[in-house]
């Protein structure tokens, strides 16, 4: 047997290969970290997009030059004009080609990134301690894998290129305008500067407001969920109005918040949009330009480039607002994704050990979900091969937690669990799962065919093997009655009853054929027809295995080899039924209580 490993060797962080530098505190560049594999392609896309943006300005410059030539003292002929027309067309095509290429490249890079990230997240989730998943909920997982990765799509496939375009094009435009006329060139910067000033005033405190907006949206969503799922109940009590009021009140609160927010920023944000509006920019340039021309400071032809390019200089301000939101949203998403990716996984053993035999031994096992209160305390337990051990005790005494340690859904907080002499933490996951099976109380079927659901633990099993196990689990007849038999897809067209689902999960465990089996004996939801069949199926499953049963009905486990009474996470009694009954302790009390309940239940039938 392996010696007690050192504390540091169990440090989940240091043993997590997927989390280099995890736990070192803030990671300032989550976006950088995530884009790693596609950064090259994104850089090329950015390059192409700048070329496209610059080329996009060239046709306007060409037209300005045409204006210059046409108004020159010597009238222009075709030889001087046509090359400029050709330049305008060529530059337009180049802009289109480069812009398209940049967009396509960024989209494809992002497409690869999305798939890679989603797969990476899925792999990581498969190695997280289960406790982490149940405590934070599956909503977090869906948010990260779906919504957050999609938020990154907006950022990389759209926002990034937009930003490049609005930053480069105006620079070239402005540079050209300065060469035409410095004074009017300076004037054409004014709307942009005013726009920046007004916009930053409108955005002052926006972060806090955005956070409140997000919270308000969250409240509305929660209210909508509550309203939709509760309306049936409220209506059946003739109180539909009340649910209606609760929901409408919540939405009124939101609408009031939104109106208030809009009122406080409306003037500056409207002004910010207006000062950079093309008509307003042209108004400024045309009025001043007219003064310049009539005063003889500028020729009419020199005014043309300003009317062509002036609006383009100011335009970026118009699109920058939504882009800032997108960047913020993308950053927040990246932070959530990296957080999940850095969450410590269940450590894989450094030096794997294979179990020798199937004797399960718990020594001094304590376990705590939150690190403060122990759910299990100093539990010693032996499960000898080929024996049945029953866990009994009031609900909340730790039965399910104790059972969940065997398939290593959680790691013990103190003590050891060994299988065949090897610490569970030193057994490679695939080896462990091959040896320890689990039939859960809460049966989960996948949206897949009946056959594939049974094959879960042994995908390569033949149809004959699947059918044999289904027969043993007393579910074969029900399956053949389904529209497509074993090929019937579950969860879409067909839903099995609770009892049927339980028998299917037993067939699954039979096929997986693990020598050690954890069984949650729960038939509360089954109809009487199913109940009898389930118990036949369980008998088939129990034969020849090391069995740990979480018992709810004492009569079922009366003849177990050993009955273990758990109370408040401690083993208070253990032994055979008759001995425990004779001892007159907690077990005897439980037994008598259930007997009288049975008498009440069956009273009028007899």
């Amino acid at each position, binding site marked *: 047997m392996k010696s007690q490993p050192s504390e540091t060797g169990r440090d989940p962080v240091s043993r997590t290969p997927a989390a280099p530098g995890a736990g070192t505190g803030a990671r300032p560049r989550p976006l950088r970290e995530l884009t790693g594999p596609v950064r090259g392609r994104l850089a090329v896309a950015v390059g192409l997009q700048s070329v496209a943006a610059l080329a996009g300005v060239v046709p306007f410059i060409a037209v300005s030059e045409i204006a210059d030539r046409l108004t020159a003292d010597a009238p222009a002929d075709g030889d001087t004009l046509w090359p400029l027309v050709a330049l305008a067309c060529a530059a337009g095509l180049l802009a289109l080609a480069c812009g398209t290429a940049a967009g396509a490249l960024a989209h494809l890079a992002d497409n690869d990134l999305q798939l890679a990230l989603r797969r990476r997240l899925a792999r990581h989730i498969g190695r997280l301690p289960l406790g982490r998943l149940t405590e934070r909920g599956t909503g977090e997982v869906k948010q990260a894998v*779906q919504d957050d990765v999609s938020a990154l799509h907006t950022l990389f496939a759209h926002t990034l290129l937009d930003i490049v375009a609005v930053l480069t094009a105006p620079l070239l435009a402005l540079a050209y305008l300065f060469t035409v006329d410095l004074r009017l060139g300076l004037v054409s910067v004014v709307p942009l500067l005013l726009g920046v000033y007004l916009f930053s005033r409108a955005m002052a405190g926006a972060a806090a407001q955005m956070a409140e907006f997000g919270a308000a949206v969250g409240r509305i969503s929660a209210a909508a969920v509550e309203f939709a*799922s509760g309306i049936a109940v409220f*209506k059946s009590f*003739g109180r539909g109005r009340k649910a209606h009021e609760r929901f409408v009140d919540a939405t009124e609160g939101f609408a009031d918040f*939104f109106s208030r927010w809009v009122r406080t920023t409306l003037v500056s944000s409207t002004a910010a949009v207006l000062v950079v509006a093309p008509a307003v920019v042209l108004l400024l340039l*045309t009025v001043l330009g007219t003064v310049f021309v009539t005063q003889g400071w500028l020729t009419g032809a020199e005014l043309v480039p300003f009317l062509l390019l002036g609006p383009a200089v100011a335009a970026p301000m118009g699109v920058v607002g939504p882009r800032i939101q997108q960047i913020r949203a993308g950053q927040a998403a990246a932070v959530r994704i990296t957080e999940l990716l850095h969450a410590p996984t269940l450590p894989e053993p450094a030096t794997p050990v294979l179990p020798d035999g199937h004797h399960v031994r718990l020594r001094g096992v304590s376990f705590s979900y939150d690190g403060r209160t122990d759910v299990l305390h100093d539990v010693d337990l032996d499960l000898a091969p080929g024996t049945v051990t029953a866990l009994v005790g009031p*609900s909340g005494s730790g039965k399910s937690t104790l059972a969940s340690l065997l398939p290593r859904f959680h790691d013990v907080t103190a003590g050891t669990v060994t299988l065949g002499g090897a610490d569970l933490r030193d057994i490679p996951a695939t080896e462990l799962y091959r040896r320890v099976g689990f039939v859960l109380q809460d049966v989960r079927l996948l949206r897949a065919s009946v056959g594939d659901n049974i094959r879960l633990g042994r995908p390569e099993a033949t149809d004959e093997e699947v059918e044999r196990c289904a027969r043993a689990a007393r579910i074969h007849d029900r399956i053949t009655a389904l529209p497509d038999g074993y090929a019937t897809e579950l969860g879409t067209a067909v839903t099995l009853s609770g009892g049927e689902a339980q028998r299917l999960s037993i067939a699954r465990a039979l096929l997986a054929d693990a020598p050690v089996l954890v069984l949650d004996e729960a038939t509360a939801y089954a109809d*009487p027809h199913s109940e009898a069949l389930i118990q036949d199926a369980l008998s088939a499953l129990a034969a020849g295995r090391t069995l740990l049963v979480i018992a709810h009905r004492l009569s079922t486990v009366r003849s177990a080899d050993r009955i273990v009474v758990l109370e408040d996470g401690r083993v208070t009694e253990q032994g055979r039924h008759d001995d425990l009954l004779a001892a007159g302790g907690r077990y005897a009390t439980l037994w008598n*209580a259930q007997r009288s309940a049975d008498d009440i239940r069956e009273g009028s039938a007899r």
Partner: protein
Amino acid sequence: MIRQLYGVLGPEGSRPLNRLLVLQCGAAVLQGVAFALLVPVLRALLGPRPDDVWPWLTAFAACALAHALLQGAAIAGGFTVGSRLSRVLHRRMADQALRLPLGWFTTGRTAEFSRLAGQNVIQVMSTPAHLLRPFISSLLTPATLVIATFFFDVRTALVLLVCAPVLFAVQAGSSAVMRRLDLGRDAAIAESADRVLEYARNQPVLRAFGRTAEGHGALDDALVAEARADRRLIARGLPGLVSFSFATRLVFALLLALGVSWQLDGSLTVPTLLSLLVLLVRLIDSVSSAAEAGAGMRIARNTLERLGAVLDEPPFPQPAEPKTPRDGSVEFTGVGFRYTEGGGDPVDAAAARPVLNDVTFRLPERSMTALVGPSGAGKTTVAALLARFRDTTEGTVRIGGVDVREIAADDLTAHVSLVFQDVYLFDGTIEENVRIAAPDADAGALAEAAALSGLDRVIEELPDGWATKVGEGGARLSGGQRQRVSIARALLKDAPILVLDEATAALDQENEALFATAVRALADRKTLLVVAHRLSTVVRADQILVLEDGRITERGTHDDLVAAGGTYASFWERRARAHGWRLAAAPS
């Protein structure tokens, strides 16, 4: 999209939208006029007498300023209409929820409804401010400019007139392709979201069988399918986007070349050519913003359509001249039920087989009837039809001799009290949850309901007693505790008819046994219909109905049915066997 907006706003919300549209159209047309006036301004400045410019400049400045004013009003109006849109939509969705039959709220629809009434309404809010304005100005400003061009150069105007439908067609075609692709992509995203949730929720079983990410092929398939759908969108959507962009550049190049050649052959003056080119740049710029708004418009239109579909669901028909039930008896006569194409769940509609077929029975006043049968036999549907969650497709359900369709909704609710297996508790205290049944009930009635349902023992165990917060959806209580709250509130309502649909499935043996006794006692006061799996409850019924495949196959008392040796008798025999079952030590 404007049609859909009017649709979801309804008559009460349409007036502010009218005003907003007038403002936005006015701003767009004025912008076009202002751009057009640049032509005479520039022509004057480029011509021999620059001082002729002043009247034109004044007109241009006036139009540009008027545009700015209207635009400012339109931006403000966009936000106002947006927040009005959220108010009106939230309220209309809430009203609609009250009118819809309870049977409409299937699991899938409930989720969809909460998404629509929650996030989607908020997404739609920004439509008037951020989508409608660019959309309208991308249509009306170019249109104004094309008309104005006729005043400056008819040939140029004609070329534009010919190009406009081409541009329009390219844009419409590209949008249609994208819309179709969006649908395929939405389906792929929904599938992969579903698989992600399945994967996360099923971690225990997946791990217990050695299936993590690598082993759960369905998840990876869904992720790959989503990536493929995205790629398809890029590959097939790109040509449309490129062709619109190409077409606009082509129009520009064409007019530039034509203009230069007309100038060279002397048919177009230099000032007119240059000022028309300035106008053309404005026109192309306005048209291009149509393409940029495209994606947002498609999504908004899609969302508005889904909101409209829910709002247009026909409300449950209510009787014009309601009648009042004479007593607490219930009668099903030749009742058939099948899910109809439009109104049923998509899943069940596909099966399209009758759920109930020629069901006839009578529940006498103050009696207890048990409804038994295998899962899927239609037991819950019987309960739903009794309470008129749905209407029958054939036959009649009568309460106190009156067809349920002729009883006013409030009156019907007052007569029938239901407890379902799925318990819904709202976020509040236990007392609040029980009292929704009868807010004015006195302490005695509350205590009695608690005692009958076994809730009194729950209250005793909990430190905060009646004031215990149940959490969202009742999450802080155990299944058995939740069920007892829901039983207590159904009892507090004190309706003459009580329907218990597997109401005790989550109770442990002791509580279930105690409640079974209490139920029997209730039959002295109420008409009881009990859907149950546990025969300990069933044996005490005055009448047992066995439902199989939507038909009643046996009826009678426990003793009659056991003696008859049919389905019920074999149920009973199996139940007895199950109870005698023992988990034996395995032979070594």
